[in-house]
Structures are given as C-alpha cells and as structure tokens.
C-alpha cells in the first residue's frame, strides 16, 4: 500500500497527468464553446484525429512543428466546417453528423497516411520537446511538474484563460450563450444565430485539432491510425462534469489525466491489484465525481436542437 502512496506523492505522476489531460482539456474547451452556442459536437474525436494527422503532415512537409500545428488546426477546422454546414446551415441531426464525421476521418486519415507515405510507414517528425520555463521551473515542488512541460501545454493554459474571459466577460460570449439558451429570442434581438453557431463550431474544431496535434507532436512525434484513442468522447463527458463552466474544466480534465497516469504507474508497484480495475479507474472515478459532487446539471436549454428561422 505504501508503494501506492509513493506514487501519489511523486511529482512525476502529476507531470504525466498534465500531459494526458491537455489534449482532453483542449477538446473539451472547444466542445464547451460549441455547446454554449447550442451545438452538440460529437465529431470531436474525428477533429482531434484530423489534427493529430495534420500536425505530423505539416511538420513532415515543412520541417517545422509550428507549421505542423497550423496544418493540424486547419484540417480539423475543415472537418468542423462540414459539421457546421450539415448541422447548423442544413439543420441536420447533430449526433448523426458527428458520428458520420468520426468514422469518415478515421478512414480518411489512414487512407491519406498510406497515400503520403509508402504503406503508411509514417516517419518520426519534429515535435515539441519539454521546455522548462526559466526561473519558474526551479520552484520547489511544483516547478518541474507545471513548468517543465512542452510549449503546447502553456498554450493550452493560455487558451483556457482567454476563452473563460471571452465566454463570461464579453458581448460575443453573451450572444453565443443566448444562442444556446433561446435562439429564437436571440434572433428576435438581432443576433445572427446561424453565424454565431458557425463561429462556435469552427473554434471548437480548431481547439480539438490543437488537442490532436498535442497527441502527435507533443507526445509521440509520429502518426498512427486512430491515435486519438477515444479522447474526444472523454472530452464530451468532461464538459458535462464541468457543468458547462470553463473554470471547472481544469480540475475535471486534470482528475482524468492523473487517474490515467496512476492506472499505468500503479501496475508497476502494486502487481496484486487487478490491472483491469486500474485501467477502469479514470472512468469509474470520473463517474463517481459526476454522481456525487456535481449534483444537478443544467445544460444550455437549446442544446442539440437545430435552429431554423421562420
């Protein structure tokens, strides 16, 4: 048992937790923006995968990981534009569109990987190595854990702060939330609901794409089929657990990330615990938190309902 305690008190666990949490956090942040505008974006997983693929493709073609970031985000935004076109402009079923996109992207990315590289042998590309923030990283305790990460981790934190401010403190944020609560009333006040939802979906795509880029360029430096590993679906759940609040996203995503890291590390020291139980831990604990602590959640009132102007 004290071996488990050793892990829980080691900074390395939390550093790993942050690494695992960041892609989920970014995708969840995007989903939050979309859902606040009234659109359930189930295509999150596909957008992450498009980002992961685009990141590697861009870094491979231009030999620069930052251009990889741009390529990944652009590809994910293209996927998001399809989602917006069908689910917002054509008022199609949001869930069906999202699921279709997930499958389409899974097939399309592996197809493209086989087209670009012979037999899909994706090479190792330039990615983001950890970059210690001067000064802050030598802080005792948390220094190395929080400030010894890759550049995309800091970018994710900054984006989290910016979007919290945009959603809660700006006119745009207020208008977007109006579109998610009562689009008809918003429309009657002159808010262009369709345009707002388009913007929210594209932002969602960009953030999910960035999360995907983090998996490929921040972690692995190559692409493999389906490498997002279902994190897009986890992000969907994280949004609900965070009660559609940007500030709650951070602890929710971190809880999941740290549990995932713990599940892998505890297997090394505590061989007597069944590994299936440990692997289920992140999901079980997240569910428990949802049931126990979160209480009643109120989604945006018009969530999932297409808006058609009369």
């Amino acid at each position, binding site marked *: 048992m004290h071996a488990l305690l050793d892990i829980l008190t080691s900074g390395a666990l939390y550093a790993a937790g942050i690494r695992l949490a960041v892609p989920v956090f970014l995708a969840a942040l995007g989903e939050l923006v979309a859902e606040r505008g009234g659109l359930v974006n189930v295509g999150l997983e596909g957008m992450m995968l498009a980002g992961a693929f685009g990141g590697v493709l861009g870094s491979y073609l231009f030999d620069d990981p930052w251009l990889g970031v741009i390529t990944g985000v652009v590809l994910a935004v293209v996927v998001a534009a399809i989602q917006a076109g069908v689910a917002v402009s054509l008022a*199609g079923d949001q869930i069906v569109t999202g699921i*279709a996109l997930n499958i*389409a992207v899974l097939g399309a990315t*592996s197809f493209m990987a086989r087209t670009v590289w012979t037999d*899909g042998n994706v090479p190792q590309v330039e990615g983001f190595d950890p970059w210690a923030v001067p000064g802050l990283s030598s802080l005792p305790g948390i220094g190395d854990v929080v400030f010894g990460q890759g550049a995309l981790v800091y970018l994710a934190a900054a984006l989290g702060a910016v979007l919290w401010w945009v959603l809660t403190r700006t006119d745009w944020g207020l208008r977007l939330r109006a579109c998610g609560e009562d689009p008809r009333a918003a429309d009657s006040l002159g808010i262009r609901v369709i345009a707002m939802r388009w913007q929210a979906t594209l932002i969602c795509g960009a953030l999910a794409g960035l999360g995907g880029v983090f998996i490929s360029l921040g972690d692995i430096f190559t692409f493999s089929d389906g490498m997002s590993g279902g994190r897009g679906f986890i992000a969907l759940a994280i949004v609900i657990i965070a009660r559609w609040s940007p500030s709650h996203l951070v602890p929710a995503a971190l809880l999941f990330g740290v549990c995932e890291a713990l599940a892998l590390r505890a*297997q090394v020291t505590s061989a007597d615990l069944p*590994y299936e139980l440990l692997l289920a831990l992140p999901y079980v604990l997240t569910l428990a938190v949802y049931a126990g602590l979160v209480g009643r959640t109120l989604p945006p009132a018009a969530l999932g309902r297409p808006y058609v102007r009369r």
Partner: protein
Amino acid sequence: MRRSLRAAAVALVALTAATGFAACGDDEEAGASSTAPSSLKVAMVLPGAINDKGFNQTGYDGLKACEAGGATVAFSEKTAVPDFTKTFQSFARDNDVVIGHGFEFGEIAAEVADEFPDVTFAVTSNPLAPEASNVVHLMPNSTQGAFLAGVAAASSSETGKLGGIAGFDFPVLQAQMTAFEAGAKYVDPGTTVKVVYLGTFDDVSKGREAAQGMAASGIDVIYHIADAAGVGVINGAKASKIKVVGWGIDQNSLAPNTVIASQVVDQAKMIQQFCSEAATGPVEGGRVISDGLQSGVIDLTKVYNEPAEVQAKVDEVRDAIVAGDVEVPSVGGDIPGSGPDAG
C-alpha cells in the same frame, strides 16, 4: 422536419463514403490483380492496420512476399470482429488461399471450412491443432525470441529492474512475458520484471506514459508487445533515457539510441513459405506448422549500442536453445477462450 431529414440523408451518405474509404485498401489490391489466370490467389484478413510497425505489418509483409512470388493477393485490414466471418466467406468465394492473421481467426476458419472445401485456410499464431482437413495453423515459437529478449535486457540493465508492456493479457502475450522473465533470470536470477497491460494496441499516449512511469520506478530496460502503442513506449523510454527491446520488426530505426534490440517475429517468412507450398499443389491440412529460431522466423536482431558481451551472451543462449540445452516456456496447447490479437 423535412430539412432535418434531408440533412440526415447527407450524413448517411458521408457515413457510407467513410466505410468505403476504410475498405479501399483491398479494392486497390484486388483491382491490380486478374493478370495471370493460373497464379495462386491469396487473400488475408488482418485485425489491425498494416502500418502498425508490429504484428499486422509483419502479416502484410508476408502477403507482399507471396505477391512477389507470383501470387495474386487481396487483403482486408482493420477488420472489425463482427465482420470476420463475412470477410472470410467473401474472400473464400474467389481465392485459393485465405489467411486469417491472428489466433482469433481459428474459430472462424473452422466455421467456414466445410462450406469451401476447395479453399485452403491458414490461421497464424494459433497453436491448437485444427480439425478441418483444409485448415492449417501457422505457429511461430515466439517465446524463444522473448527468452532472448530477456537475455539481452538483463545483460544491458544496470539496475536489475526490467519492465514488460503488453497491449492485453492474451495468453500468447502472457507466455512471451513469462519467457522474457525466464530469459532475464537465466542471466541474473536477481532480476525483477514488472508487467503493465495497457488495455489497447492503438493508444500511443498510454504506451508513452507507461514507459515513463516505469522509468520513474527505477526500471531501465523495457520489453514491449504493444504494436502501434509500442511506438509510444519507445518514445516514452527515449524521453526518460532508458532502453527498449522492441517487438515484431527491427525497431531500432525508430529511436537508434533507445532500442537496443528487437524480437523479430517474422510471420512474413512463415506466410511466404506457406504460399510457396500452396503454389505447388494442395497443402495438407489439419496440422500446425511450427517454426522458430532454427529458420529465423523467430529471432532477436543484433544488439545495438551495447558492449560486445551482450551480443555474445545472446548468441550463446540462441545456440543453446536451438541445441535444446535451454528449455524455454512455451505458449502451450490449451489456450482458453478466444479473442487474442497479437502473437
């Protein structure tokens, strides 16, 4: 309502297109065929992606070797479990040989064998004797390679702590982990081996974090059997500056300073040998073709970046295994249940 119906239809079209995308690998291959009418027609069903740098890739390499040997080939990759039987049947209708790549196809082959008596079915990584007379199982003695991996890992370790990372606790994988540990203890009885299961062959991030977690606990050499997720293991080990023994193909090129050797599971060679046998006439069924270190189907690559003694030790043990002087734990013939993926 009309609008949403129309949109749902659009989504449905996208969905169909997507499934088409996923299947187009075999269309291409099948389309390029039909040149020499007399050539052997071989089809393969793979559970994972042909570019996973592991189990599925070596199966695909085997199929390509068959093609180079004059056969006309087709394949289906990333085949979902519910589609196994259907894919087998459709391939059996217009091929001479249908290969299921992986233990789990044993049951499927047994199920459809009677329906297609003129077709020869082969299932890889399956140690059980098939009942049908037109089914052959190809079983590489992968534990021999795992034993050598243990020898190399223990000889290269400074801490005496080794790690094993596997996708799932499938019997074939567990057997290799057991053999790895036996190999390590053959070199140094005081060596400890910790095994972690990822619960996935695809999630590279989990592979990476598992490796980094092992490094934090003092483990300095990791042996992985995790296919695509194993690429994550190698990257995590690289970040933590520890060593890896790879699996499947020579993985040294992925991280030259990290991967000290790889267990080669050259299913390609077994499949190629099987194809050339099938090209000359009907293959005798109802048996297990087993192969290992003797023919190089199973081996350990050369040892990179380590003192010459490590290589010498590996060579010594390899000879001893081939001569029968060292006993290696085997997969055994009584694997319960079904579902294993890698071999």
